[in-house]
């Protein structure tokens, strides 16, 4: 039932609206509103109960194992959240005087420094509000760099077929043509294919390493050499940074620019689809183009760097300074983890992934790259089961929900048929991994003995599989008042 269907005319949570003094509203009639908006008319308790009950229909990290590949669904520490919600931080206006903002600015500055160190980059700007905006900023900087050098013929960005969909979409937003490079059989980029692709038209390449295939591209130095010799730059998609924290740095691999996903590697809450935060880091040559504002430290006090300080900046990407509250959470998380904790994040994320990968392979599941070690994630392909048993990756994903586990990422990367991209993260205990293995084995048995149980799953959730075709054909995007 929708909140609107629980509404009664005139009912409201009266306590929450201010008393109003009787003043004249001196606004011309033609600029005033005359109709009512369809907002709920409910008591405070009705609202609290309605949304509490809705929350209970969600799977979440706090309630379920959530091995969604490429999303790094690790524990979001409550202590971090609580500190970021301190009133002094929440009440700070984004345009408050610098003298009254040194606390927040110092956190942002220190995070910039730590992220630069982690990535092996020269400088970091925290302002992009999600990974995709970080990608946009990164590619826009690549473009600004070429334009600044009057190197205007470069109109192509190379993107692997395994890349996140945001990569090609971001390149197009920056005015580039996208050229897709296929992945080699070993999961690495084929160097000969790459050599044949690059030229004076190449602006750069966008890569994730370890890739979305869950393997580390061992040829990365050679890839960097080919791109740089062709005059292009390398963009690093930081979605998988959790796999290599403190082990290897994108800057050392030869990348010129990267984005971080604070909501992945740095444990800030995913919020049911955001907010994220996508800071960008660059090597020395791209530094002039970083998006503003950034924080600088002068004589022990902090201030904003704006376009005035950075005339070549690609500019501003939000009204203020990005997702400041997320930046704060990532800072606090970094301080709790410290140097040793960062090393451990990558180590235990990788241990958990390889343990799951080995156990699932032993249980008869087919790995997409059986010869390779997993990074912090890996891929199981159910192509064989789909063919012989008629049970698809989607079916297995839905059946997992019945067992109280969120499904892994399905049908991504697109080049692996019937795939599950599985990322357990470092915060899951061995017992929880073992449970996942047990139910995967159980579902495989069900697929053999009672396939319909799997192909019609889920059975235990508030609803069964939805009619997506109807949703798209007979668009119903808002509740119709009076319905």
């Amino acid at each position, binding site marked *: 039932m929708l909140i609107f269907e629980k509404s009664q005319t005139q009912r409201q949570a009266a306590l929450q609206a201010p008393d109003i003094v009787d003043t004249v509203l001196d606004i011309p009639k033609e600029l005033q509103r005359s109709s009512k908006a369809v*907002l709920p008319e409910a008591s405070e308790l009705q609202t609290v109960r309605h949304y509490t009950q809705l929350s209970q229909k969600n799977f979440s990290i706090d309630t379920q194992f959530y091995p969604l590949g490429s999303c790094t669904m690790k524990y979001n520490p409550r202590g971090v959240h609580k500190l970021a919600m301190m009133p002094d931080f929440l009440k700070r206006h984004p345009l408050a005087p610098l003298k009254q903002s040194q606390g927040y600015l110092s956190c942002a500055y220190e995070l910039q420094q730590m992220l630069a160190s982690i990535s092996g980059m020269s400088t970091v700007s925290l302002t992009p509000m999600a990974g995709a905006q970080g990608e946009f900023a990164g590619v826009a900087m690549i473009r600004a760099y070429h334009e600044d050098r009057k190197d205007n013929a470069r109109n192509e960005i190379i993107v692997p077929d395994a890349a996140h969909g945001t990569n090609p979409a971001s390149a197009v937003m920056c005015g580039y043509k996208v050229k897709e490079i296929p992945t080699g059989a070993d999961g690495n980029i084929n160097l000969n294919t790459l050599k044949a692709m690059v030229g004076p038209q190449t602006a750069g390449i966008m890569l994730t390493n370890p890739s979305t295939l869950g393997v580390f591209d061992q040829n990365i130095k050679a890839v960097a050499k080919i791109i740089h010799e062709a005059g292009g730059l390398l963009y690093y998609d930081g979605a998988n940074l959790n796999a290599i924290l403190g082990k290897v740095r994108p800057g050392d691999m030869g990348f010129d620019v990267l984005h971080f996903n604070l909501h992945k590697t740095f444990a800030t809450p995913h919020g049911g689809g955001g907010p994220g935060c996508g800071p960008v880091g660059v090597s020395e040559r791209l530094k002039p183009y970083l998006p503003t504002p950034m924080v600088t430290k002068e004589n022990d006090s902090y201030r904003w760097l704006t376009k005035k300080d950075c005339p070549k900046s690609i500019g501003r990407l939000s009204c203020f300074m990005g997702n400041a509250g997320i930046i704060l959470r990532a800072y606090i998380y970094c301080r709790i983890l410290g140097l040793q904790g960062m090393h451990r994040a990558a180590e235990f994320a990788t241990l958990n992934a390889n343990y799951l990968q080995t156990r699932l392979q032993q249980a008869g599941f087919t790995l997409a790259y059986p010869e390779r070690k997993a990074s912090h994630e890996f891929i199981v392909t159910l192509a064989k089961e789909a063919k012989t048993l008629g049970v698809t990756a989607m079916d297995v994903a839905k059946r997992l929900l019945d067992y109280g586990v969120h499904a892994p990422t399905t049908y991504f990367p697109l080049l692996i048929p019937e795939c599950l991209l599985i990322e357990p993260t470092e915060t899951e205990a061995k017992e929880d991994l073992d449970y996942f293995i047990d139910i995967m084995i159980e579902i495989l048995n069900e697929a053999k003995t009672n396939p319909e149980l799997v192909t019609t799953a889920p059975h235990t959730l508030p609803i069964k599989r939805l009619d997506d075709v109807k949703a798209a054909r007979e668009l119903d995007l808002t*509740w119709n008042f009076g319905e």
Partner: protein
Amino acid sequence: MPYIPHTDNDIKNMLAVIGADSINDLFNEIPAELRIDTLKNIPDGLGEMQTNQLMQEKASLDKRGLCFIGAGAYEHHIPAAVWEIAGRGEFMTAYTPYQAEASQGTLQLLYEYQTMIASLMGMEVSNASLYDGASALAEAVLMAVRANRKSKSKRILVAGSIHPHYLDTANAIVHAQGISIEVVPFCNTQGKVLVEAFATYENEDITAVVIPQPNFFGVLADVNQLTAWAHQHNALAIAVVNPTAVALLKEPGQWADGVDIVCGEGQPLGIPLSSGGPYFGFLCCKKTIVRQMPGRIIGRTVDSEGLTGYTLTLQAREQHIRRSKATSNICTNQGLAVTAATIYMSLLGFEGLKKVARACYANTHQLAALLTNIDGVTLMFQGHYFHEVLLQLPCDIDAVLDNLCEQGIQGGFNVSPYFPQLENALLVCATEVKTEKDLQHFANQLEFAIHQVA
């Protein structure tokens, strides 16, 4: 080990299963010359208690003043229930609802949000949010270029009275796609763009016109005329509005024959100021152009047994399906902020939101009356304003603001650096949270500060 549950025994058993000697061996596919042993400049980790102490020290440096700054972010009362519920782990630690059956809570909430915000704006449809108001304007511009098939020019006219950061953001995001954003100057005495200012574009191919209401200066423009001008010239009309103000001001769907796209900053709907984010951008449009919309959209449908359910729909517009041909690169949006806004709108209702708007209007008008009683302080513009107003002071603004800051007052926003033609211009705002005593205190301190500085 913080947040890592493994016992020594677990590690030993897991490595044995994998057939590796050590955790370090798991990284041996990474070429040795790339491996590092440690990171520089990362301090040692802290316990939760030490972290509390550290952060309390940091927070104490962000001294809270009595805040009269608006300029795109507004201090409103946030009912306790808003973040108590939005902060539940089931909302906060879920992700994008790809698995609809396991995400009905978030999905139904977003459907309710779409209904509320679309209705508030007088529009047919809404998406599930963008990053913030300024980036939402950039997406609205890109959407207009796709949607307006009659126009080939990719020329966008923007009222010069718009928030200057919105203009910068839109430029930064759209310029690489060959779109030109042209600023239409505002009237220096009225502080708004008059329809006469469009005369120079009479016979030109214009793709869209961007109309803020209230504008950056808090001034109300003749939005019906501006919308009509856009449509008479085959341009789409894009409204940029404040959601609180729209409770009292005419909703964009009713401006003349109705705007095509509405966007704006959702922060006033229950989102704390928190240094500028996370907020959320809202985006609504006419149903005829919904396929050009960026971002997630939730639709209502039925399951295999006919039960009502909610799901991500029109996904063929999006990057994870369409890749380089997507309407936008946006993936993660601002879901949690929208969760809070939905609960906020539900608690306030339309009547409550109108009262908030009314109280903001009244307080800002009372503040303006008090401040213009001070010698040398005048209203910069004639005409109607909503919950923000631009004042002209008889002296340098920065010096006055510095002085006020010492008295614990954040006395507004200095607009002159952005608009050199507006000398000593101070933008002030008083929302419903300000008491009569606060307003009087500000007036007294401002008078004092001006004496000190002038």
